[in-house]
């Protein structure tokens, strides 16, 4: 799990051009979206959907689940562990 979390953080930093942010600075349980967390927005959500699909073969069938799955790095990692195809 820890390896997956580190991998996810690195992918997020690269895909979202999170300049000046290191993987260590992203807390596992901190919210990704909104002012309280990393401040990501809907365009970033599209980039994360592509990370899931491209790197782990996961397609999110029910968009309503998105809010929970994308809440934090930890929730993303949990969802990947439960649903990964590659």
């Amino acid at each position, binding site marked *: 799990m820890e390896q997956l979390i580190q991998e996810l953080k690195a992918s997020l930093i690269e*895909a*979202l*051009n*999170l*300049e000046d942010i290191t993987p260590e600075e992203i807390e596992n349980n901190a919210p990704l979206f909104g002012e309280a967390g990393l*401040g990501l*927005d809907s*365009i970033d959500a*599209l*980039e994360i959907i*592509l990370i899931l*699909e*491209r790197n782990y073969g996961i397609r999110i069938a029910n968009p309503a689940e998105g809010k929970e799955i994308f809440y934090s790095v930890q929730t993303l990692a949990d969802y990947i562990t439960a649903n990964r195809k590659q």
Partner: protein
Amino acid sequence: MSKQTIYINSIASTLPDTQDSPEFVPGKQVSIQEPDYKTLIPDATLRRRMSRIVRMGVATGMQCLNKFPNAPVDAILTATGYGCLGDTEKFMNTLLDNHEQMLTPTAFIQSTFNTIGAQIALLSKNHGYNNTYTHRAFSFESALLDAILLLREEEASNVLVGAIDEMTPTVYEILKRLGLWRNALAGEGANFAILSTTAIPESYAVLEGIELFNGTYSAAEIQERIHNYLVQKEEKNVTVLFPSDYKKICGEYPTAMAYAFNTCCKHLQSGEIKTPILVYNTFLGNHSFIFLKPV
């Protein structure tokens, strides 16, 4: 159309690292001093999505606007010969790597030519006329022509005009294969100016004329054309700037004329050059004159 005098009231440029004439090494890439992006584009979310050319263009455009607090501009005109190459390359590579599936949105959104003009408008909350010209070596000149028309037809009083081009390793190699660097430095840059119908104490220069033409001409034919242009303008004591004069500093790129334009404005304002200046530019068969006078 009125013969309205057009003043250049603000300029901003990304400057090449060296302003002297360095040793000429064909194909050498000119490096430029990039501004402090965090100060000029404080929104981190906006900034992180911007590729290098977008940052360079937006920051330089904002610098130019910040130096001119007198009034909001009525129009924003940008020009680029190559466009947002970095984002285009990223998008095209993703297209190839992922077999045209699962394409990321950001690089595509930012790869469009008008990204820079649009981002400047968003940041400065400008809802005016906004246009981008992508006419190879005539891109900057076309934007300038549009600005002249807007000002002379009294549709605008202040217009921001800028030109941006970047060099990426891929395009550098492609142009090298085409032989472009045999006798040239590889350049890039962002150059913006505000053109106005009213002079201010800080006015840099007066834009007196612009001429564009295509084709293959010998040096003698160009000299004759310059002579005829100046006769028509009834000017005798004029400083003529040739591409070799400024491209040894800024390098070769489709909108290098914008660098020459801003440099001349600076020299005219400081009094370093006291005569009118005719700038000649040529790039792959496109030729242009821009004629500037002291205020």
